[in-house]
């Protein structure tokens, strides 16, 4: 299976000093719904803009669907992009946006776009400037989907939406994924937003990739163990401690291990996805991530 996005030592610097993304080596397989998670300013938007061809790398390389991004119209046609806050031309109507999409995209599915606008209850004659945030996000998604891309990139699509609009947005997105089998990468600073829909996870912290892999495998490889207080350094070598918290008597650790925890003094519990993500986010100030955390588990 080829990669939806493949990066090698990818870095992007703004101005002279600020690295928004640094040494990012990552493979995102095709046919997945990928959650790109990290705190604000972690480099999620930069990574998506690099993939959409809006930015060019300062260092390293990025291939999207096997090619450099945005090199020619054919490559542009393969990638749908919805930018943060779903920008739209305030003075153009919904219908004019669809006409724009039709004129600019060779694979345009006008029927789908029209149907979606109708289902959403958007007035084609309404100017985009007077749409609500949720309606604008839906319009932007419709434009990106009707382009019939192979890969859909969504930058914080849920951030400005209320819970109801979030649910609608994700429902529509899942319909599209089911119908067309597109790969999707969507970013958020909260994994709980995406938990129900994603099957692949990338955690970006402080312009570095902290964790990447298949959600099921990641959950299977991590355990929360608790037991009598002890120094994490005395644990077996096969256990990688991601997060540790101690009370006077007890230690609670989040560990990554491929082996079963046999020590009877520990009670072992599975980890929830959001806890896992938060644990990795917490490692931003710690030592450099262990090498295997950078590798993609497939």
């Amino acid at each position, binding site marked *: 299976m080829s990669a939806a996005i493949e990066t090698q030592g990818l870095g992007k610097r703004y101005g002279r000093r600020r690295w928004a993304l640094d040494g990012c080596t990552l493979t995102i397989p095709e046919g997945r719904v990928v959650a790109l998670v990290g705190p604000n300013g972690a480099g999620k938007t930069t990574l998506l803009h690099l993939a959409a061809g809006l930015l060019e790398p300062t260092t390293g390389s990025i291939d999207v669907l096997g090619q450099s991004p945005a090199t020619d119209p054919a490559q*542009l046609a393969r990638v*749908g992009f919805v930018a943060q806050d779903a920008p739209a031309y305030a003075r*153009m109507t919904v219908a004019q946006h669809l006409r724009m999409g039709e004129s*600019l995209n060779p*694979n345009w599915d006008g029927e789908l776009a029209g149907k979606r606008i109708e289902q959403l209850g958007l007035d084609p004659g309404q100017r985009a400037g007077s749409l609500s945030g949720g309606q604008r996000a839906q319009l932007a998604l419709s434009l990106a989907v009707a382009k019939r891309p192979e890969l859909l990139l969504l930058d914080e699509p849920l951030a400005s939406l209320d819970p109801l609009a979030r649910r609608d947005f994700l429902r529509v997105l899942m319909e599209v994924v089911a119908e067309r089998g597109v790969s999707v990468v969507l970013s958020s600073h909260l994994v709980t937003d995406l938990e129900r829909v994603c099957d692949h996870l990338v955690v970006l912290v402080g312009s570095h990739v902290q964790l990447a892999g298949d959600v099921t495998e990641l959950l299977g490889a991590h355990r929360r163990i608790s037991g009598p207080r002890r120094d994490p350094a005395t644990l077996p070598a096969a256990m990688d401690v991601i997060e540790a918290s101690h009370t006077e008597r007890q230690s609670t650790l989040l560990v990554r291990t491929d082996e079963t925890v046999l020590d009877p003094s520990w009670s072992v519990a599975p980890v929830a996805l959001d806890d896992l993500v938060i644990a990795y986010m917490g490692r931003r100030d710690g030592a450099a991530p262990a090498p295997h955390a950078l590798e993609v588990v497939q």
Partner: protein
Amino acid sequence: MIRVAWMQLRTQALVVFGALAGLAVVLALTGPHLAHLYDTTVASCASHGTCDTAGDLFLRHDTQLRGLLSILTWVVPVVLGVFWGAPLVARELESGTFRLAWTQSVTRTHWLVTKLALGALATMAAAGLVSLAVTWWASPFDRLTLDRFSPDVFSERGIVAVGYAAFAFTLGVAAGVVIRRTLPAMAVTLVGFVAVRQMFATWVRPLLLAPSHLHVTLGGGTPVGFGKSDSGPFTLWPEPPNLPNAWVYTTRIVDDHGRELTSQALSRACPTLTDLGPRPPTAGGARAVAPAPQQVANALHDCVTKLAASYHEVVTYQPAGRYWTFQWYELAIFLAVATALAGFSVWWVRRRLV
């Protein structure tokens, strides 16, 4: 892409060209009347011997409309540059819509070139139509004043306005892509255009073609004045010969070797004249021409006759026949600069906005 570019320009274009249609109606209603008036008064004045008064009377017609048209020919290119050119990319960058536009299946080069071409064409068409209409409407005045090369008249007639429009528009686009914000880009466009157009008319236009020289006998035909500027020495001021529609740079008094008449040579040759002197300058006037009392007039006449033996006048000028050459040159230069600015904008959007 053309459809999209047109869709985004359409409303504004309709407003502008609608206003121009209104202007055309006004000119079409008043123009024929002016032409008729010219034919019946100025053109036939020689047979009645009333040319001075006929001309003066004719020039008093439609002064307000003429002033308005003069402003309009100035304003149309720069307003379109400011309101169409500057926001073309800057507003997309400001509002984030470039992320929508540049992720459709059209490269951003194609996107920008199309928008640039359409906007530039619309701007050039608007300015060109205004200039055409004004040139036609004002032709009776121009036939009377015979001064087509005077800086303002030259810029407000013919084809140069098309070049100004292309320049103003592309300057706006270039300022927008570099500054990335609409309002500052608009301000830069306004100031930049006004400065460049003014400087071009003052300093560059006279250099476009090497001027011709005309040698005339001193005092032979045109009167010679006498006076001084501020505290400078006395000099003779020859009036240029009557060259209709020509552009006279200077009229100098030189000897056979081309040396100019100095004030020392003047006082040596005409002591009576310099002793008499002209009347002192009137208050506030930088120059005072002696409105000669009889004595001075006689002395001046004697002086000119005496000097004519060794001195003559040299008129440095552009003949009237070069008018269209100048128009084409200026148009070509402004179009070349506009092309360079457009190329720069495309380069910047491709290479620097990443």
